[in-house]
């Protein structure tokens, strides 16, 4: 039994990505003469993963259901821009950011509902719909609503959350003391990972996503209300995207309406790298987190690896290319 479950594990893409990630970390650690696997660097990498990690989870659940969401960055951007603007105008959130987060979640939810309504009601190709809504939401935010950057005037509640740390690690670099914070927001990433994993594996809703991704007609015949499931899915993804966007505002202390444009183009390859199938029905939180980790580690080690600035894009592209090649070859092997 144990042997066969191990064999099954080796058939999974996640397994390989995990090994690649570990191997790459070790390689980089050695190449950078021991500067990667140290607490302060790990703190930095974890912090850099928070927002992208939550976005990746959004993208993952949609992809498992056989969809393809291009609009979540646009939703997040509109949600946090509106939310911070409202908070600022009303003088909210100077002590704690909860109101802002609730607002962003609600706005994200409403925008997600719009996606969900179109996708579930008209049974349209999700990539096309979300391409449309992405353009539409961005246009709404920057054109009609004329969202502006909010920087130093950002309510203090947001800034404080972004600066709050769980623990601080101090070390001596050269002849000076350098301290690194482990951001509180990492908790949110962990919560979301556990929650997503739980929903996907332990609830009928999660199984519905896999079932729909595997065979939508069968799922309908099996008794799932596919329409409802999809509607809820996109609405919730919208809400979570809004939340993640708000986290970004806190972490950067600025609300820049344009900041997330094009984000989907880096998140989606990462999710695929983590073993999710673009055809639906495949993918796991573990794989996604590993892939996200891999990418974050690489992009935060370029300087340490002495890769010239002008070649960093190329290096990034090649890593992604190799990664998806590995996962594609692995998928091919598995499917015979």
């Amino acid at each position, binding site marked *: 039994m144990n042997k*066969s*479950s191990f064999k*099954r594990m080796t058939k999974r893409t996640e397994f390989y990505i995990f090994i690649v990630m570990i191997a790459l970390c070790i390689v980089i650690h050695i190449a950078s003469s021991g500067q990667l696997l140290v607490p302060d660097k790990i703190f930095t990498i974890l912090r850099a993963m928070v927002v992208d990690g939550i976005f990746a989870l959004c993208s993952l659940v949609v992809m498992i259901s056989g969809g393809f969401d291009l609009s979540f960055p646009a939703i997040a951007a509109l949600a946090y821009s509106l939310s911070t603007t409202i908070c600022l105008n009303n003088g909210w959130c100077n002590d704690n950011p909860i109101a802002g987060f609730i607002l962003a979640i609600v706005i994200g939810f409403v925008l997600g509902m719009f996606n969900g309504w179109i996708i579930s009601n008209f049974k349209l190709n999700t990539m096309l719909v979300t391409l449309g809504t992405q353009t539409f939401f961005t246009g709404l935010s920057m054109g009609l609503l004329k969202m502006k950057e909010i920087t130093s005037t950002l309510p203090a509640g947001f800034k404080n959350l972004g600066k709050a740390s769980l623990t601080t690690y101090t070390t001596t670099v050269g002849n000076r003391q350098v301290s690194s914070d482990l951001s509180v927001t990492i908790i949110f990433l962990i919560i979301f990972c556990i929650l997503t994993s739980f929903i996907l*594996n*332990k*609830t*009928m*809703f*999660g*199984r519905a996503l*896999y*079932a729909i*991704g*595997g*065979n939508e*007609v*069968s*799922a*309908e*015949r*099996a*008794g*799932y*209300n596919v329409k409802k499931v999809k509607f809820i899915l996109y609405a919730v993804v919208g809400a979570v995207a809004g939340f993640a966007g708000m986290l970004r505002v806190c972490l950067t202390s600025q609300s820049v309406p344009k900041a997330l444009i094009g984000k989907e183009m880096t998140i989606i390859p990462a999710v695929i790298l983590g073993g999710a*199938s673009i055809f*639906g*029905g*495949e993918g796991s939180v573990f794989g996604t987190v590993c892939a996200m980790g891999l990418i974050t580690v690489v992009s935060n080690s370029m300087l340490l690896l002495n890769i010239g600035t002008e070649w960093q894009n190329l290096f990034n592209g090649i890593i992604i290319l190799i990664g998806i090649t590995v996962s594609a070859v692995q998928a091919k092997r598995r*499917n*015979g």
Partner: protein
Amino acid sequence: MSEYLLEMSGICKSFAGVHALDHVDFKVRPGKVMCLAGENGCGKSTLVKIISGVYTKDEGEVTFEGKKISKITPAEATQLGIQVIYQDLSIFPNLTVMENLAINSEITAGKKLVNKKRWEATAKEALSKIGYNIDLHARMGELSVADKQLVAICRALLFNAKLIIMDEPTTALTKKEVEALFKTVRQLRDSGIAIMFISHKTEEIFEISDDVCIMRNGQNVYSGPTAELTREKYTYYLTGRNLEPDYFVPKNISEEPILKVENLTLKDKRCKNVSFELKKGEILGVTGLLGSGRTELALALFGLEKIESGRIELKGKEVKISSPMAAQKAKIGYVPEDRLTEGLCLQQPIADNITLASLKRLSNSLSIIRKKDIIADANIWKEKFAIKTDDVRKFASTLSGGNQQKIVLSKWLSNDLDVLILNGPTVGVDVGAKQDIHHLVHELANEGLAVIMISDDLPEVVVNCNRAIVMKDGLIVGEMTSEDLTEENILEIIR
């Protein structure tokens, strides 16, 4: 309370002008097996979908257990006790066997959370209903068609169904599995469940059914007990003509073999040490159990499987067939077993599908091609095969299964071939069309074509082949020529 479990009267349904169902009356008695038979495209699947709530009827009345039903959803149908095993099986290829078995009942039970133990118990219970054994944690997509089918059947049995509908459940099963399935069906029937059964195989209908309903062109032409029906009458009702078994009489077998396979072993070892010869004018049957490697053998000859050792000779010369293109050049054609995924471009015109493998012939030296020629070429085949359509420019998806199969056949027959490999050429094809196809293959063989016919349908092999080989576990375990080529002999070897 009426004596019928399900009563349908005057059912009409049309799709964009096509009358799929035209005032059909249909009744099922509880605790009986009801067979629904009819030519391809006569509306059987459509009727099933109306019962199960997938389609809504245009006209007519449905009564289930004496209650009139106006409009139901698939979920409501399940609750009423109607279970359908669809032609496409409705399984989840990405989930495990256990999940596939348990998921439906979990949903119906309105469960919100997953309990692996309960799922496993449910799955085991389902399998035990027909005494079938399989790794519960295997991925569904990796199973063979037969295993998928059995899982789907087990899943349906889980429900306290009053009516189980099976749409062509035996197409992908071999004799042995069909027997197992029938045992289950009888068992269910005896426990008071009504079974509705669609099949194109005459033998099966007479073996299993209590009542028969025969449809033609969207109307029912016969309804009543099977006992009152003879086979002749049955085929007559079905096709409107009298059909005699049309045994293949080879007239024109060449001296020298055109194809010679020696010690062929495939890379993945699904086929080992296979040797056989094929002469012009022959129809060579290849049969065996599921997973016996017949498909792989055919694919190897068509350049889609990697060969490890052994040689293939065509007209005395060794050839390397590395791709379908090479096979076409060597004048070998292949009609795949799964027409939907391997044979057809459903969302393209019928004409383009028919001419897909002969574009080279239809285009000039600049590879310029004219739609007119495509249509003209397609129309020839439409006439020849009596493909049921008014316009070859319509999409292939508008045809029924049997007519789609005819397209796949004509795609290769329109090529100039030496060897034609047919893999399950009449799967899901009605008797009438089957006869047409067989007749045509006979003619072609007698004109000098060498044919390999892979089939599970033993009568088909016996009637149409002058020679047959039987495979088991990738090995050839028996060869028979016309005298000893009988169903009994084949079955003996397989067992």
